[in-house]
């Protein structure tokens, strides 16, 4: 059956917007995704119908909201195929999830001289928290290089992961290159050498089926807003044996069992890591987003994006002035395409695409400045696809690039 992206688009109210009489073509999906009616309604319905603080009310409304919040946790567990809901912590997003690990796990388990292995393609959110930890602990950061084709070489990674390595942390899909990293193989390497593995799933879990037990990772992080859910809700998976060794992250209400004037004891997993009133309304939205994605089917979605990526690489690749970054083999990449147009700065391109063609793309360093240096560019333009994008969107992109070339022609 053909993937009905145009039909799915109708479920997204914002995508009926027009600018200067042109249908909005939204290609900034790696930054954030649009929300289907089902998610917007789930959050509204929660506020209109079930809102009460969770875990403490002795009345039916609070029981309802607690059930909705914990139901969302079970939904995330199932989506990632984690063994238990005890392993699923709600956070504000992938960034907070990584900071939680760097703070609670890192400060306990990383000591002077220990090594943390990252890659050159990490988003700042999977780099800066480790810099902070390394500075505090006098630990050492090592980087798996990005090859010229935009991939990482497992052999070179293997050489960097040694008995001194405490943690390997890498993205599953690059937010710039689209590269899908071999995280399953990396998990084996890490395990053999006694290191743990964190997988940044911000760009993978919205677009492909993910199974944390199949990957064999110890930590996995995601952001809801990149997978149709509201902003401000995300999750952290931690394998239970690891989570049990971790002290709390934030202190406050809900994460405690007993509090005395001079000390406190901790709540059970996973609530020990969720201080304060959690973002239960948006967790309900995340659950609705997972239902939506599950109904679409992650494998069908990935195939759809792969076809669009192939089409985009084909169309852009035949333009003389366009430089493409990342793997050429669409089997090795997700639906993210970064490129540059000769003589046209990405910002100028983005402005022209917006005003001329109502096409929204990203221009800049994509929170990956070290990768920009590796690619030897100051910035790139980036188009990222999702379930509501169609080939015509890419035609509109190409048309806009032609217009930009015309404006900047020498």
């Amino acid at each position: 059956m053909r993937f009905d992206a145009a039909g799915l688009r109708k479920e997204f109210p914002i995508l009926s917007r027009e600018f200067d009489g042109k249908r909005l073509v939204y290609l900034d999906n790696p930054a954030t995704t649009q929300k289907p009616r089902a998610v917007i309604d789930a959050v509204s319905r929660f506020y209109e119908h079930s809102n009460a603080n969770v875990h403490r009310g002795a009345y039916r409304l609070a029981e309802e909201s607690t059930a909705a919040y914990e139901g969302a946790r079970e939904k995330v567990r199932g989506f990632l195929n984690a063994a238990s809901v005890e392993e699923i912590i709600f956070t504000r997003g992938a960034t907070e999830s990584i900071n939680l690990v760097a703070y609670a796990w890192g400060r306990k388990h990383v000591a002077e001289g220990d090594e943390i292995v990252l890659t050159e393609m990490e988003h700042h959110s999977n780099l800066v928290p480790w810099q902070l930890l390394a500075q505090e602990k006098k630990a050492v950061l090592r980087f798996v290089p990005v090859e010229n084709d935009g991939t990482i070489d497992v052999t070179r990674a293997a050489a960097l992961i040694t008995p001194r390595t405490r943690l390997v942390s890498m993205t599953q899909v690059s937010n710039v290159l689209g590269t899908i990293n071999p995280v399953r193989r990396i998990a084996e390497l890490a395990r053999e050498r006694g290191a743990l593995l964190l997988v940044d799933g911000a760009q993978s879990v919205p677009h492909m089926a993910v199974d944390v037990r199949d990957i064999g990772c110890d930590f996995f992080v995601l952001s809801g807003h990149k997978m149709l859910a509201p902003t401000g809700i995300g999750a952290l998976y931690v394998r239970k044996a690891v989570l049990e060794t971790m002290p709390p992250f934030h202190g406050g209400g809900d994460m405690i069992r007993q509090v005395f004037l001079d000390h406190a004891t901790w709540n059970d997993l996973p609530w020990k890591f969720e201080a304060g009133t959690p973002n239960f309304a948006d967790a309900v939205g995340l659950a609705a987003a997972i239902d939506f994605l599950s109904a679409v089917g992650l494998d069908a979605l990935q195939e759809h994006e792969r076809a669009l990526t192939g089409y985009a690489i084909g169309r852009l690749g035949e333009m003389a002035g366009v430089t493409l970054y990342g793997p050429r083999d669409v089997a090795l990449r997700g639906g993210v395409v970064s490129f540059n147009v000769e003589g046209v700065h990405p910002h100028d391109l983005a402005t022209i695409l917006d005003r001329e063609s109502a096409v929204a793309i990203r221009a800049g360093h994509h929170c990956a400045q070290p990768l920009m240096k590796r690619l030897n560019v100051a910035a790139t333009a980036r188009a990222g696809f999702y379930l509501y994008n169609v080939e015509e969107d890419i035609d509109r992109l190409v048309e806009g690039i032609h217009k930009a070339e015309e404006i900047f022609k020498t």
Partner: protein
Amino acid sequence: MSLEGLYQEIILDHYKAPRNRGSVENPDIDIFESNPLCGDEIRIQAKLDGRTIQDIRFEGKGCSISLASASMMTEALKGHAHDHAHKYIDGIKAMMHGEDKLNDEELGDMEALKGVADFPARVKCALLAWTTLEKALNDRAARKG
């Protein structure tokens, strides 16, 4: 405002053939700044003679708006006094809010930057060179007490 209002011939001309691009020997002002939003970079160097900007040059990586603006800035300020620089810095900043503080004669080529006010996402690009120079002048004034 249309794209034509933003990408006027004069802007594209300064972008493709920037004036005063390069470095100054033994500069009295040497400042590097980047725009954290986009990674654009600029380095401005100037040679002063008393209160006069004897020479001013720039290097940078950036979009057409930021580089054209830097090019126009060096043209407008070379050979003029500090006070002149501050007047222009204020004038260009005001222009980004649609305010006219400088007349057409004072503006010259820079009149083409007026179109940027209609593209809020690009105002930072147009101002990068100006705010960077302002910082350098203020730092220098502070050092001198």
